[in-house]
């Protein structure tokens, strides 16, 4: 993929993403492709819908981006998390960022696993996310129908079908039965 590893810029990434040539993230100058996935998109959108419903009912406490939001977690790292939630307090002017690639650190990041994701890759992502200041990472696995809630790189609580998981301190009061994600 052009440009060569180590030489890609945010502009290169944006162009590919905007033209839908590929879904790419930027990691220290290298464009990394995010696999194309239709089924995972359904889960991401449904989860976001449930979060928005919750906010509408209780309180609009921040922004909930969907799957193709380009977010700069730290200098050199632009990721496209499947769902993310950022409280107003974390935004410079407490309103919707206008830039194409906002430099914000969400409180919550959700990744939906694809068959091509490796354990090492997802651990690396968690390392980046927690280093940047993300408070919780939810990793959803459609194959095993589980939701792993991480509060640090390795500290995790697993929820299976039949369980209900919650937003903890990040989104207090939000709960969702795991099985609904895969219905």
């Amino acid at each position, binding site marked *: 993929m052009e440009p060569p590893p180590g030489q890609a810029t945010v502009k290169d990434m944006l162009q590919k993403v905007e*033209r839908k040539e590929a879904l790419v993230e930027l990691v220290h100058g290298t464009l990394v492709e995010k696999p194309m996935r239709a089924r995972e998109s359904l889960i991401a959108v449904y989860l976001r819908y449930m979060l928005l419903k919750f906010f509408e009912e209780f309180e609009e406490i921040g922004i909930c981006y969907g799957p193709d939001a380009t977010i700069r977690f730290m200098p050199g790292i632009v990721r496209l998390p499947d769902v993310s939630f950022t409280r107003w307090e974390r935004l410079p002017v407490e309103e919707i960022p206008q830039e194409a690639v906002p430099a914000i650190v969400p409180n919550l990041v959700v990744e939906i696993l694809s068959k091509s994701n490796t354990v090492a890759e997802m651990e690396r992502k968690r390392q980046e996310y927690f280093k940047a200041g993300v408070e919780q990472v939810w990793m959803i696995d459609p194959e095993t129908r589980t939701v792993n809630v991480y509060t640090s790189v390795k500290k995790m609580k697993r929820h299976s079908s039949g369980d209900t998981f919650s937003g903890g301190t990040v989104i207090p009061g939000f709960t969702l039965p795991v099985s609904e994600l895969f219905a």
Partner: protein
Amino acid sequence: MTLIFDIIPNLAIEVLSPSNTRQEMALKQKEYFEAGVELMWIVDIEKRTVQVYTSVEDPGLLLQHSDTLTGGDVLPGLSITLQEMFACLDEAAP
């Protein structure tokens, strides 16, 4: 391994980005309708408009300001005002 759906949606919605060209969107319109899509919306966030297309040749119906987006034959009864749709862009802390 990728999982790509081999289906033709009834409705396709595209949201414009600064680098999308008119040519590119015209090509999409052609591809979508030739494939069997029945309704296509192109959302322009900058201008806060929606162009509605119902065929390959359709020059598009422009919706703006206080217009309402409806679902035609694809989603009968659907009614979204452009104001409510674009309101999410103006959200801010209370």
